């Protein structure tokens, strides 16, 4: 069996894990990160893409709000190219209680979230589709974030500092010797072989899966995975993040990101982060709530629905042994559970991932008895000189490089060079990996034309076996279907039929040789329950996002 020796082993390739990897690598620790699938395959790649100003939490959780605005400023400095400076509005619709307004403004002052009143006429000039019945509007420094790109760049920076980032390495179990965790036994899904990774310290950064990972070393970490379902509209219905000015609840936000607008989100407790469904009532709720902000939004073309699981941590140990804020949990299992060599970081929000990584790496320094200062708030991620992303950025680049003849994905303006780069530099192994790198297949046709092209290129560049290419093609069609099925009506249903014509009639892909699906296939949602869904929507405890 292949073995790897390292100082720090990080389990989980989401925002937190790659953030910890970068921080550890920058502080000079020998670092290995394992992710069971592709980077950002889990919760990080399935959130609505909001860069919090903190406005959302100023009343409910002022400490979290203060953390958000502090990190918001840092992220704008170190990774502007992963962000779009959309700004955000908090609006009071006829469905909201105007008495929340003074509490909101007081909360903003208290948490030092910059806020200004926007006259309704000015609001409608900037966002003409918003409900004309809105009575109050406040501007805050919200933004939207490309969490795929940010995760990829944290990984790239980690590699530059010597870290090893291993995707498709599924942790079978932590290796425990007596009262010590000494590493993890992994299944390399690509090579289909086992790898033992030994480390001085293992960081469990598996988010909603942290409980499952800890359990393999007989450590109890109780997580209550909170499923959130989101829906994307085919275009930018708004160019500003729109929040309802009220206590956070279901379906109260619209985030414009890249070519789409994301409606979010629900919060439903699930028992297993690997098994959950997108329920029809959730989609309906998103559309009903969106109509309150943008009358007619539910009639617009819906591209897709998806769901992620928030890592909601519930402490089961009564001793005061954890280093925790309300927003995230950092657990040292030596004092807490009598097991040394492993710590767990979970909970939190994408916006505060860097702060969580800093706290975790401080703990790594302490555990390894080697204090070294953090620099992740000072040093930019690769490519930051490009400045903020904006909607026209890709078109501008295409025009400057005159590469318009070389598009693979017309919807998202992805060129052949982008796909080649994703495969050779980003080490993409599936079409879904390419999607996360370059947004291929995320536009209106949902892969109708680009899937075949991407598989053709993947086959060529990776020199894949035909059966592996065929499986990549079928895997991705299934992957797209899982998010299409909940929202197929109107024009998107028509589109799905055209895609079916292309793949099942013209290309006849189901007749191709090879296995119907592979180990690398993205995880699927369960079927919605026949009774119409899990418990009816209830008042939501916002501890996740």
């Amino acid at each position, binding site marked *: 069996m292949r073995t790897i020796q390292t100082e720090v082993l990080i389990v989980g390739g989401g925002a937190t894990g790659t953030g910890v990897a970068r921080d550890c690598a920058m502080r000079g620790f020998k670092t290995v990160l394992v992710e069971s699938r592709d980077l950002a395959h889990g919760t990080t790649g399935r959130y609505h893409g909001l860069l919090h100003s903190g406005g959302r939490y100023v009343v409910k959780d002022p400490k979290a709000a203060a953390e958000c605005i502090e990190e918001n400023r840092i992220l704008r400095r170190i990774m502007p190219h992963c962000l779009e400076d959309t700004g955000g509005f908090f609006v009071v619709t006829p469905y909201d209680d105007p008495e929340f307004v003074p509490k909101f403004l007081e909360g903003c002052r208290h948490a030092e979230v910059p806020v200004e009143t926007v006259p309704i006429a000015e609001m409608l000039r900037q966002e003409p589709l918003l409900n004309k019945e809105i009575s109050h509007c406040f501007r805050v420094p919200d933004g939207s974030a490309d969490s795929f790109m940010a995760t990829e760049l944290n990984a790239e920076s980690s590699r530059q500092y010597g870290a090893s980032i291993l995707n498709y390495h599924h942790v079978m179990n932590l290796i425990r010797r007596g009262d010590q965790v000494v590493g993890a036994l992994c299944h390399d899904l690509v090579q289909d072989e086992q790898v033992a990774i030994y480390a001085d310290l293992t960081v469990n950064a598996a988010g909603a899966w942290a409980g499952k990972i800890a359990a393999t070393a007989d450590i109890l970490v109780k997580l209550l995975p909170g499923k959130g379902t989101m829906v994307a509209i085919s275009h930018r219905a708004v160019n500003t993040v729109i929040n309802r000015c009220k206590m956070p609840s279901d379906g109260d936000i619209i985030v414009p990101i890249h070519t789409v607008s994301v409606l979010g989100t629900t919060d439903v407790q699930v028992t297993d982060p690997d098994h959950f469904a997108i329920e029809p009532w959730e989609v309906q709720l998103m559309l009903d709530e969106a109509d309150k902000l943008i009358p007619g939004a539910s009639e617009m073309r819906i591209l897709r629905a998806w769901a992620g699981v928030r890592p909601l941590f519930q402490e089961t140990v009564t001793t005061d042994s954890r280093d925790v804020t309300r927003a995230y949990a950092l657990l040292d299992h030596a004092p807490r559970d009598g097991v040394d060599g492993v710590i767990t970081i979970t909970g939190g929000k994408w916006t505060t991932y860097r702060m969580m990584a800093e706290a975790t790496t401080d703990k790594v320094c302490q555990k390894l008895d080697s204090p070294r200062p953090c620099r992740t708030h000072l040093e930019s991620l690769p490519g930051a000189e490009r400045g903020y992303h904006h909607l026209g950025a890709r078109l501008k680049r295409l025009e400057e490089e005159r590469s318009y003849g070389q598009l693979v994905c017309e919807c998202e303006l992805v060129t052949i060079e982008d796909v080649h780069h994703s495969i050779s530099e980003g080490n993409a192994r599936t079409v879904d990996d390419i999607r996360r790198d370059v947004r291929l297949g995320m536009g209106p046709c949902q892969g109708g034309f680009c899937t075949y092209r991407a598989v053709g290129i993947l086959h060529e560049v990776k020199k894949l076996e035909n059966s592996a290419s065929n499986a990549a093609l079928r895997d991705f069609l299934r992957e797209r279907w899982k998010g299409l099925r909940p929202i197929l009506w109107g024009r998107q249903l028509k589109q799905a039929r055209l895609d079916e014509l292309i793949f099942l009639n013209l290309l006849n892909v189901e007749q191709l*040789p090879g296995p119907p699906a592979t180990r690398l296939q993205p995880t699927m949602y369960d079927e919605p329950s026949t009774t119409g869904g899990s418990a009816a929507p209830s008042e939501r405890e916002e501890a996740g996002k």
Partner: protein
Amino acid sequence: MAGKPDVLVIGAGLAGLTAAWQALTMGKRVRLIAKGWGMTHWHAGCIDVMGEGVDDDGGISDSAGHAMAGTAAVQPDHPYAILGRPKLNEAIDSFAQLCRAYEYPLVGNAGKNWMLPSAVGAARPTYLAPETMIAGDLTDQRPMLIVGLSQLNDFYPGLMADNLNAQGIPAAAVTVDLASLREVRHLNPVMVANRFHSLTFLDEIADAIRPHLNGAERVGLPAVLGFEQPIRVKLELEQRLGCQLFEIPTLPPSVPGIRLHRILVQEIRRLGGVVQEGFEVVAAEISGSRVLRVFSEAGARQKSHAADVFVLATGGILGGGMVAAQTGDIKETIFGLPLSGVKAQQDWLSHEYFDPQGHAVFKTGIRVNRDFRPIDETGSQFAENLIVVGTTLAHCDPLRERSMEGIAVATGFWGGRQAASNESS
């Protein structure tokens, strides 16, 4: 043509065009209006009649005729069951004759389906294929060379060849870089097809392929061999290469499909018919049991179109003739015709994309009687002068059954004749 036509056809897919052509052959004044061009621009450009089905002995058959008979037994409301086999054959034969008259033969395989390669190298069953495609026959083991073009993103010869080899067909692949295409932006199959009007281009591509032949007895190219004289292009290339050539259907837009579209439009115009696109029909005026006129919208102007008989050929959900709303309602967009096979929304789509049963929502359609007049559940007729043809018909999934062109041509053919006579059987 001025004044009111005898027959107004709505929809310019294969079914609508075939209906217009047939009504014209019966001496009627025909106008065809459509929102845009239809299915011909998307499909493979072959005539699929039925992929495979249950034969008389209960086994799987690759014979389209047998498959049809099986379908009729299993599904008595299937358009083929309504027509019967002799009428299906007559319609398909007549369509093939028309194409032959335009020097574009559609070739059958002695009543059985061809097995031709798709652009990923999967076997694709089809009943009639243009002569430009049949050298790709996969029941034949002769070695082939698959040729791609560097600038054409819609075709990947390497993947196709590897898949063919895995299925026992010796195949090599090459991508040729043609100097004349290097400066072209956003090359698609239609743009390549347009270049085959020039002999220089023909020479250039032949010269580029020749060094890679290595004993290949046939050469496969994406389906781009021109619009006007593809058979001649094929022969010229075969002469230059010294081996057989075949076309492989690509992603839309479909060059072979557009050829069929052009043949039908030319024939309709030759017979004095009118074909107009840019007219989206949105409503109808009905009085008693007769449709009086339909209304189109374009450029914010409404226009009314009266006729004696109307033929609806707007396609199903893909064609835009039916719209499925989020509420679960499915509507035929012009007349609000009664629909058959409507399922509750949670049963519209299978959880599994590749479900061999297909997705139920796409089997929703319009039920017709033997005269192709739409009927409701009780069998009562919607109007005496309305005919419905094509993939908008219920109780079939043309895409999964591989009956798309067969249904379009056969129902268009007989529906067009029915519209011209407009008598009840």
